[in-house]
């Protein structure tokens, strides 16, 4: 039996609250910049939202995409398209048979802007005023479909939907597409555009959001004793995955290997994680096993770490049980906010760059580590093991008990 192909990352792309592309986002992250700010939108006061801030894109999509593309795509698809173009160019526009190229682009919520504005139109002006592209714009697979159309990806386009684990699940799925021989190259990641009155009102109602309205930049504070919820962000992150053989044959620059995928479910509750953390722990162990590594090999974890009181503690304990003391942990949502379906993908990019640059990005706003957090939280950018092979884990967990852990190793 032949061995499945090794999967490498040859391109990265993103548009985030910290920057309009990956280099600017990474620089801002290493510098410990917060992307959170008071939202300048009328609807925040009009609808009396209890939370008045979020982490919107640093570079609005409207500044990048031509008007016809803006009009035909929900913001979630616009963000994915911006990230896909950067990732593809960054990979050196690989020459690949379209039937060997896949697209896996996840979203947690889908085209919420399109859905709700079309509903406003129906209520206010009647059914015949609804635009004919409403369905293709609101469907959650729209970003994946647009990316597949843009790049001519015909091996399959897919849209995992697993709340805040979606973006990481998409990358895991992309890895599996290559390992199972369905594709040589896959563009994979996640996107979200949910800074809208309804999701914000709903997240606030379940007390998931920080209410630190007077100090948005300090609101996302994973592991800090005074954390009070997450900050809603938006954006997209996509990577170009490639079989190592395909990448080497074309002389591509390789960022890292994606060596391990672990996916589990809690089967516990529709919102909070299983407080035992057993499902999260099992995802990390499966990813390690898949990568052929032991806990001691892992130098760094980009944690899911949303800054909610319950979630961070459960994950920290699961990381400590799985990996012990020797691992440096970053909670980058302290800077980016929580990109929901985009989060796991952007944080996989951070994990890849951490391995490539041997540097863990900081977790900002940790003024006083919460009692009982036993992990080594990087509160400023931290060098990872100076020499030798390097391996890191990205964790992504979603409402409904979805757990994804991905292992990146130095190429």
């Amino acid at each position, binding site marked *: 039996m032949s061995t499945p192909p090794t999967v490498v990352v040859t391109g990265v792309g993103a548009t985030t609250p910290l920057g309009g592309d990956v280099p600017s986002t990474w620089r801002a992250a290493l510098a410990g910049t917060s992307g959170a700010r008071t939202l300048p939108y009328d609807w925040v006061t009009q609808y009396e939202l209890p939370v008045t801030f979020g982490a919107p894109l640093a570079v609005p999509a409207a500044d990048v995409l*031509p*008007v*016809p593309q803006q*009009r035909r795509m929900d913001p979630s698809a616009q963000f994915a398209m911006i990230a896909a173009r950067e990732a593809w160019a960054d990979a050196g526009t690989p020459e690949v048979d379209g039937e060997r190229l896949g697209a896996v682009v996840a979203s947690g919520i889908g085209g919420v802007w399109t859905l709700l504005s079309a509903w406003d139109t129906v209520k206010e002006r009647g059914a*015949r*005023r609804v*635009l*004919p*592209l409403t369905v293709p714009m609101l469907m959650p697979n729209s970003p994946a479909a647009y990316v597949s159309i843009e790049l001519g990806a015909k091996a399959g386009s897919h849209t995992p939907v697993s709340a805040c684990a979606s973006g990481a699940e998409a990358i895991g799925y992309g890895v599996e597409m290559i390992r199972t021989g369905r594709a040589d190259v896959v563009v994979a990641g996640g996107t979200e555009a949910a800074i809208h009155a309804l999701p914000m009102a709903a997240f606030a109602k379940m007390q998931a959001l920080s209410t630190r309205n007077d100090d948005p930049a300090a609101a996302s504070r994973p592991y800090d004793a005074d954390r009070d919820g997450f900050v809603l962000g938006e954006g997209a992150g996509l990577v170009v995955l490639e079989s190592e053989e395909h990448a080497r044959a074309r002389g591509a620059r390789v960022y890292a290997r994606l060596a391990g995928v672990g996916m589990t479910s809690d089967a516990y509750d529709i919102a909070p994680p299983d407080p035992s953390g057993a499902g999260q722990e099992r995802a990390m162990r499966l990813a390690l096993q898949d990568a052929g590594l032991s806990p001691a090999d892992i130098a760094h974890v980009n944690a899911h770490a949303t800054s909610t009181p319950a979630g961070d503690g459960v994950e920290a304990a699961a990381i400590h049980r799985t990996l012990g003391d020797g691992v440096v942990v970053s909670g980058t949502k302290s800077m980016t906010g929580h990109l929901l379906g985009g989060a796991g993908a952007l944080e996989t990019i951070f994990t890849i760059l951490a391995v490539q640059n041997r540097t863990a990005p900081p977790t900002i706003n940790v003024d006083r580590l919460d009692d009982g957090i036993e992990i080594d939280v990087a509160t400023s950018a931290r060098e990872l093991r100076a020499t030798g092979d390097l391996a890191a884990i990205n964790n992504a967990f979603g409402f409904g008990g979805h757990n994804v852990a991905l292992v990146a190793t130095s190429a």
Partner: protein
Amino acid sequence: MASSEQEILAGLAEIVNEETGLPTDSVQLDKSFTDDLDIDSLSMMTIVTQAEDKFSVTIPDDEVKNLVTVGDAVTYIAGAQA
């Protein structure tokens, strides 16, 4: 207030430009929406909806198939405004 045919043409050209990216000066009276401007049926419905708002007219869905050229649309809108 009713617009002149020249104003309607210019307004339509703006809508077509935003929807498709085609330059406004390519939108001429004798151009066919499908054959010359390569506008598909979904985009056409969107353009019609925008035009209804812009010129304060109603263009029934059944009527859209009769709007073959830009000139047809201009004539229809001018008539509906009168």
